């Protein structure tokens, strides 16, 4: 058994410290969990009813059916689509939350929020087919919010969700409709998956997987609306220079780490912190208040406001081991419950904020949108109080900090390209792809996983693809990995990009006023922002009159872990994008499901899953797929 840790230099500093102090981290717990259950790894363990657990013998000698008669194919398919349902639920609750907040703003009930991007609001309204002539901003916001909430309410099965219908290419919509895979209502899709996987229901593996794909497309719908409405409320990302890794913590400041996924609270914390700087100084923090990000809340505030990113998923605990974090403010998703235990080893306040996401041992500050600023003030006060208790002798901030140029949403990318050709911004990109200067585009998304040395697969694959002139986009913890390892800099472009890619990035960057090339990897935002990459791809496809499954576009989640990643990967495949997964998915116990997702999907959808645990080989496979697509387009 080999133990995988991290290539993050801050881990090298802090893990020995954790060991010395007897603090267990995620890697210690991973080790203690070995070996992990083979039935679970294969996905052939069913716990859906209380006659179980049932297990199928994968080698044919033992039981081939569970007590109810479900075989390995049924069990694996049910298990995997339940993961999709959970991922969809997570993203969509986030989306609903933002949509309701926007309705509240429109109705004038939420004084702590405003419409920060009026232009985007109008663009979104137009995209959704709303007539906005003569209407004031709040009326438009109200209509957009109501239409959006309609995607959670529509009961007409033949009418697809508004967001998805207005986002994809015509051909893709027809193809998905032909498979009966277009969702009509996000909530209904989650419910439907849970209903059809109940004991004694859908047992046909193919039918179950198609149901899962439909659920995953509801996840895509939820992500689109969450991302776009967040931009309207909090601002659309624009390129900005910031920093990443734990070196962004400051010894002389009150360090507040915002962690989780939802910008509704973190945005207000950022606003309020500025007003409370003086209070922090009076408490002895000469540097005032220093807000840093962790995980996707971190990405959200990073791409919008240039707030530095301290850690991605697997290093969230390391942030606490520095002894320099005074408060870790968490909302939803990807928060390890261990943070409260580690926080208790220090002076750190772990503050939960959402009533449906509490952690034992943490301080709970119930967050409500109408009192957002007041709640944020409570939180910052707790952080300042904690700062007074900080033991300076225990502060170890690693000397690990990289510059990161971030904030490349769809608008920013099109904007940068517009500097080359204002009339037809996509033309420079399309020309570069056509003449081979850009061989293809790869979107890196997804998590960190203890089964992979933290960040190493991301970095290995990105360097290889960049050398082969593939344009790289990233979101979520993948983006965090690239930012921490200095791949979101102009220097990285000069060092790692192939000659033709380097030329394109330099031309665009210089023209866009960056005084040099664009960074090697473009940071598009949090994991809910994967829809931004689709927006660019759809624009290119529409401009060329082709569908998404013809573009030399691939996706990769080399260190995937969460149920959200399962949902994202599945819609990526459903949109026609070949999608690499670097973690062994829990489906190999069913030959039927494995074949369906890795082979049959190609005929049905154009996209398909590729499983490859070795990042070097994975990069080769992605290059081969890109070349195959190029040949298909005759370029």
């Amino acid at each position: 058994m080999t133990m995988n840790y991290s290539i993050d230099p801050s881990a090298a500093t802090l893990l020995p410290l954790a060991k010395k102090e007897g603090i267990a981290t995620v890697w210690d717990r991973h080790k203690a969990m070995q070996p992990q259950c083979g039935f679970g790894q294969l996905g052939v363990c069913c716990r859906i009813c209380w006659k179980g657990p049932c297990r199928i013998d994968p080698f044919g000698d033992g039981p081939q059916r569970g007590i109810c008669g479900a075989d390995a194919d049924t069990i694996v398919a049910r298990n995997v689509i339940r993961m999709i349902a959970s991922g969809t639920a997570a993203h969509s609750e986030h989306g609903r939350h933002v949509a309701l907040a926007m309705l509240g703003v429109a109705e004038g009930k939420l004084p702590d929020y405003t419409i920060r991007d009026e232009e985007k609001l109008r663009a979104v309204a137009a995209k959704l087919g709303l007539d906005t002539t003569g209407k004031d901003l709040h009326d438009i916001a109200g209509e957009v919010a109501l239409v959006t909430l309609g995607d959670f309410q529509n009961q007409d099965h033949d009418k697809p969700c508004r967001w998805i219908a207005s986002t994809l290419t015509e051909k893709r919509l027809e193809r998905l409709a032909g498979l009966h895979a277009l969702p009509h209502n996000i909530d209904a899709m989650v419910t439907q998956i849970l209903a059809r996987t109940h004991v004694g229901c859908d047992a046909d593996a193919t039918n179950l997987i198609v149901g899962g794909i439909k659920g995953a497309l509801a996840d895509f719908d939820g992500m689109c609306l969450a991302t776009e409405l967040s931009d309207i409320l909090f601002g659309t990302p624009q390129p900005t220079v910031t920093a990443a890794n734990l070196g962004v913590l400051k010894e002389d400041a009150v360090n507040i780490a915002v962690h989780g996924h939802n910008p509704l609270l973190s945005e207000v914390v950022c606003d309020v912190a500025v007003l409370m700087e003086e209070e922090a100084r009076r408490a002895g923090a000469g540097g005032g208040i220093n807000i840093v990000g962790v995980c996707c809340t971190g990405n959200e505030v990073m791409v919008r406001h240039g707030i530095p990113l301290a850690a991605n998923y697997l290093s969230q605990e390391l942030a606490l081991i520095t002894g320099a974090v005074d408060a870790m403010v968490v909302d939803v998703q990807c928060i390890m419950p261990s943070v409260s235990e580690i926080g208790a080893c220090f002076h750190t306040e772990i503050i939960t904020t959402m009533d449906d996401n509490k952690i034992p041992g943490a301080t709970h500050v119930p967050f409500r949108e109408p009192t957002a600023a007041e709640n944020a003030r409570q939180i910052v006060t707790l952080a300042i109080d904690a700062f007074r208790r900080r033991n300076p002798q225990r502060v170890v901030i690693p000397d690990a900090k990289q510059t990161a140029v971030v904030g490349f949403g769809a608008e920013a990318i099109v904007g940068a390209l517009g500097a080359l050709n204002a009339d037809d911004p996509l033309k420079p990109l399309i020309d570069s792809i056509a003449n081979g200067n850009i061989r293809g585009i790869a979107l890196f998304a997804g998590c960190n996983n203890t089964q992979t040395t933290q960040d190493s697969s991301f970095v290995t694959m990105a360097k290889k693809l960049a050398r082969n002139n593939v344009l790289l986009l990233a979101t979520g913890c993948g983006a965090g990995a690239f930012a921490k390892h200095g791949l979101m800099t102009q220097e990285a472009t000069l060092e790692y990009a192939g000659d033709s890619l380097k030329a394109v990035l330099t031309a665009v960057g210089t023209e866009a006023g960056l005084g040099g090339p664009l960074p090697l990897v473009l940071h598009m935002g949090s994991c809910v922002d994967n829809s931004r990459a689709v927006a660019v791809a759809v624009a290119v496809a529409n401009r060329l009159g082709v569908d998404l499954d013809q573009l030399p576009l691939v996706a990769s989640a080399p260190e995937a872990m969460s149920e959200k990643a399962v949902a994202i990967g599945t819609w990526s495949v459903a949109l026609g994008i070949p999608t690499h997964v670097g973690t062994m998915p829990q489906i190999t116990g069913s030959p039927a499901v494995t074949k369906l997702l890795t082979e049959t999907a190609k005929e049905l959808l154009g996209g398909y899953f590729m499983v490859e645990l070795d990042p070097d080989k994975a990069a080769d496979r992605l290059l081969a797929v890109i070349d195959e697509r190029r040949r298909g387009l005759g370029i």
Partner: protein
Amino acid sequence: MKKLLRENAIIFSDPEKCLGCHSCELSCAVAHGGGDLHAAAVQGQTLRPRNRVVAAGGVTMPVQCRQCEDAPCAFACPTGSILQEEGRVAIREKNCVGCKVCVMVCPFGAISVKAEADPPTDGRTNRGVARKCDLCAHTGREVPACIEACPTKALSLVDLEEFRQSLLEARVAELAQSHRYLIQRKVKP
């Protein structure tokens, strides 16, 4: 010098700790298949464990060969395929005709006669040979796969010399304890 004769090592199963998860069976099958779990599953290989989790009398525990010192299977085998070898009872699979006499005489039901994979019968043979726990000899492992796989540490490889030594020490400690107690109470043993 005469080689010190040691008793065969055994795998000890603790029924108090066994949760009946079958992980030991799975890892045994994979270890003897020579590949990894996912590859075996994807390729649809037929692999057979050499141990079996049995539930009876309110307890669950895996059962495997006891590596008997005076093994009935070795005596019963008409082809002489079963013999004592390097601290365990070994089966020379190439000499085995699959007659199942060993199965009938094994007091623990630890031997099965099946082909490792599922090759089609060729009319003359089903290719079934006697198989049982071989303590993962020749699999390149230091510790048998089942022991590594057990999540509750219910399985252990027992070296009988060490085991007896601990047993003796425990008994002596117990005796000493009661002796002290009796002295305290001024009771003559």
